């Protein structure tokens, strides 16, 4: 077996994690007293906001230990038919995430998440931050931070969702999972039925690949391929991300968020290399609610993006984007099944829409296409709150930039996602 020198850092990185986790596991076996802890922040579920999702996970911890560990795994089978053609049934190991948290000391805590996608094709630290708790309304966070744009970026764990695929808007327009090196503040306040939370961070940001990439469209996720974003900024100023969310314990939660900054450098080594400051501005709104009588859960998110695209560049890369998704989840059976005390079967549906290029062609005045719709009905089985088996059928209409007849595709997906 040969190991490419280019893979060596990745190998060392993975080995470090595996060794660390093994040591932790061995220690735990010897101690024989690992206990699950639902939420190390000790918030009750009603006061959890989407922005708390990173901390609202099932962790295992050893009694007396300051360290907790957890993770989740997602895998599925998929059969896709595009315009009558198929490459057959395929199996996908989408991702495995491992997270660890630690109470370092008084007012100091640490949380990290390592994600391994597609069996190791992508390995990265999604989150690694230290929090300094000063006051419920004012705390400090620094390290590798998940930018709080929309809700899905922070609340993306597979076991929480009834669908194998992540929402198109969240992963093909917004860059979930999007994290960067940076610092910021966050806080939360409770008053009777109401909870108000906010986050605001300055981080490194996007690079020019968002309007120069092989996806052939303005594509914020393109920057994720640039690993240097954890050590340098590609704009003259940092990326600003801020979110405010308000929740009523009966009605649900609404969040509004903004992420914006410059994605090019005008100066380098004292030389002017560009005359225009190219900026982007992203606005998102998210809702999460539950209809009490029917126990129907509704989750939705919409975003609009504005990007500076030079006038002499090609309109292939749009200067405005918009999209949304909405999930409706209806529990239909909830009772002991197969020995699981609180098993549940859900019927769900998702509507996805992304328009990567909003506007009209300068040459003809006709509408630019480059958009996609998808509907996904789903049936899912949850033996417990931490595991979900999902059976989805996704039908998708993809229209090219010229607005030619849509390309149709359908996918059958069957898979599971579970915390461990």
């Amino acid at each position, binding site marked *: 077996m040969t190991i490419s020198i280019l893979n060596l850092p990745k190998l060392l990185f993975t080995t470090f994690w595996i060794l660390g986790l093994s040591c932790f596991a061995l220690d735990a076996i010897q101690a024989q007293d690992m206990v699950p802890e639902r939420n190390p922040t000790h918030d009750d579920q009603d006061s959890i906001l989407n922005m708390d999702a990173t901390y609202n996970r099932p962790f295992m911890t050893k009694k007396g230990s300051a360290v907790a560990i957890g993770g989740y795994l997602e895998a599925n089978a998929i*059969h*896709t*038919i*595009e*315009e*009558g*053609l*198929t490459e057959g*049934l395929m199996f996908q190991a989408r991702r495995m995430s491992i997270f660890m948290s630690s109470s370092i000391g008084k007012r100091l805590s640490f949380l990290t998440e390592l994600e391994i996608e597609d069996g190791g094709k992508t390995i990265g630290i999604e989150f690694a931050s230290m929090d300094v708790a000063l006051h419920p309304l004012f705390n400090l966070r620094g390290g590798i931070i998940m930018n709080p744009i929309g809700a899905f970026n922070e609340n993306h764990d597979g076991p929480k969702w009834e669908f194998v695929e992540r929402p198109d808007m969240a992963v093909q327009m917004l860059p979930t999972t999007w994290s960067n090196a940076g610092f910021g503040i966050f806080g939360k306040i409770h008053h009777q039925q109401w909870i108000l939370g906010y986050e605001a961070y300055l981080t490194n940001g996007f690079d*020019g*690949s968002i*309007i*120069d*990439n*092989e*996806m*052939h469209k303005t594509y914020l996720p393109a920057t994720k391929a640039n690993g240097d974003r954890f050590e340098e900024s590609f704009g003259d100023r940092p990326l600003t991300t801020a979110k405010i969310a308000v929740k009523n314990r009966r009605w649900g939660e609404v969040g509004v968020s903004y992420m914006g900054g410059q994605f*090019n450098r005008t100066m380098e080594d004292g030389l002017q*290399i*560009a*005359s*225009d400051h*190219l900026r982007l501005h992203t606005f998102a709104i998210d809702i999460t609610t539950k209809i009490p009588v029917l126990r129907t859960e509704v989750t939705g998110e919409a975003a609009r993006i504005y990007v500076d695209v*030079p006038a*002499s*560049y*090609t*309109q*292939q890369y749009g200067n405005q984007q918009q999209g949304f998704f909405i999930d409706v989840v209806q529990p239909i059976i909830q009772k002991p*099944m*197969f020995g699981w005390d609180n098993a549940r079967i859900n019927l769900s549906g998702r509507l996805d829409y992304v328009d990567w290029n909003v506007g009209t*062609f*300068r*040459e*003809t005045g*006709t509408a630019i*296409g480059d958009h996609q719709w998808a509907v996904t009905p789903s049936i899912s089985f949850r033996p417990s709150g931490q595991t979900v088996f999902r*059976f989805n*059928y996704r*039908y998708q209409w993809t229209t*090219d*930039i*010229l*607005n*030619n*007849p849509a390309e*149709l*595709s*359908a996918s*059958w997906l*069957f898979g599971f996602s579970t915390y461990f």
Partner: protein
Amino acid sequence: MKPIIITSLAVLILFFGSCEHFGPPEPEEHDLLDGPIERLTIEEQKQFLAGDIAFNDEIFTVEKGLGPVFVGTSCGSCHAGDGKGHPFVKFTRFGQSDSTGNQFATFGDGRNQLQHKAIPGYEGQVLPEGAPFSEFVAPSVTGLGYLDAVTDETILALADPDDLDGDGISGRPHYNYPPDYVHYRQNSIPNGEKYIFRFGKKASTYDLLHQTVDAYNQDIGITSIFDPIDPYSGLSQDPEIGTQTINDVVLYLKTLKAPIQRDQDVPEVIAGKKIFEDISCSSCHTPTLQTGFSPIAQLSYQEFHPYTDLLLHDMGPELDDGYTEGYAETYEWRTAPLWGLGLAADSQGGQVYLMHDGRARSIEEAILLHGGEAENSRNEYQELPTKKKEQLIAFLNSL
């Protein structure tokens, strides 16, 4: 729990066993322009696939050599679905040499195509003041291998430069000097050192290698071993695309199937075809041609129906942009193949943009723009009763 287990198993069996029945159906072959000619060898199919990926999927970025100035960012951006292009990616050629010389030879890379788009940090070129110019919408690229395999002898047999038959139509081949890297066709009939050019709206390129190399260089700003001059700096540069990729794309273009006519048995279409011949549209838009030898067996000695004679014709003042290319006159255009015309809207965003610059927004508008040698046919069309006009257009839409 048994019924639940049985139901679950039934659902899974349904899932694994009948997925294909719940997906979108495959479009009819005659509704598509892409796809290879039949019975290619396995080796040819592999290379077709490589060419397909290079042509339709390879997107040029700054890192891969795009620009700094350019017109398009991929082959597919101009030829969506291998069909006719959209004005969104139309390009401009200007000020080529005429009897007074090329007064714009010092502009840009000295070539005649405007690079009006630029990567961030650069400015696209602006048309030099006073330059005559033509705008071009990209043509469909299907069936090109058949046109490539037509013999010079066949083309010359269709030519009548002095209108000896007195029908008012006097097509001539475009003789020009090929670049050094092309391989001359077997049984070529040169005129001195000039050879018959056949691709492009003014028949400005010799073969599909020449066309491909020019398009990469002038449309995307990609240099190759065949044409290492960067259109921005005018300097020689390392190749930004591999020779194998160029060869794959050339084979892909050669082996794209010919468009398949639809509704051939519909009475309206049959009647329209007769009108097409009666008013002499077919004098230039030659319905049937024959290939000669081709290294690709499936292209050798085949009869096909492109509706072109590959000759330059005087198209009259309305289509005379004052711009010349090679040895074509400003008013001369190579007869556009009409095959695939009825599918133009499927690659032009549900509308049609016809003629060389997309100025005609319907087939009728395109017919009415014909002048010069086509003036008689246009006049005859105008005198047709409405029903016959509809029949003619139904036929053209079936191509």
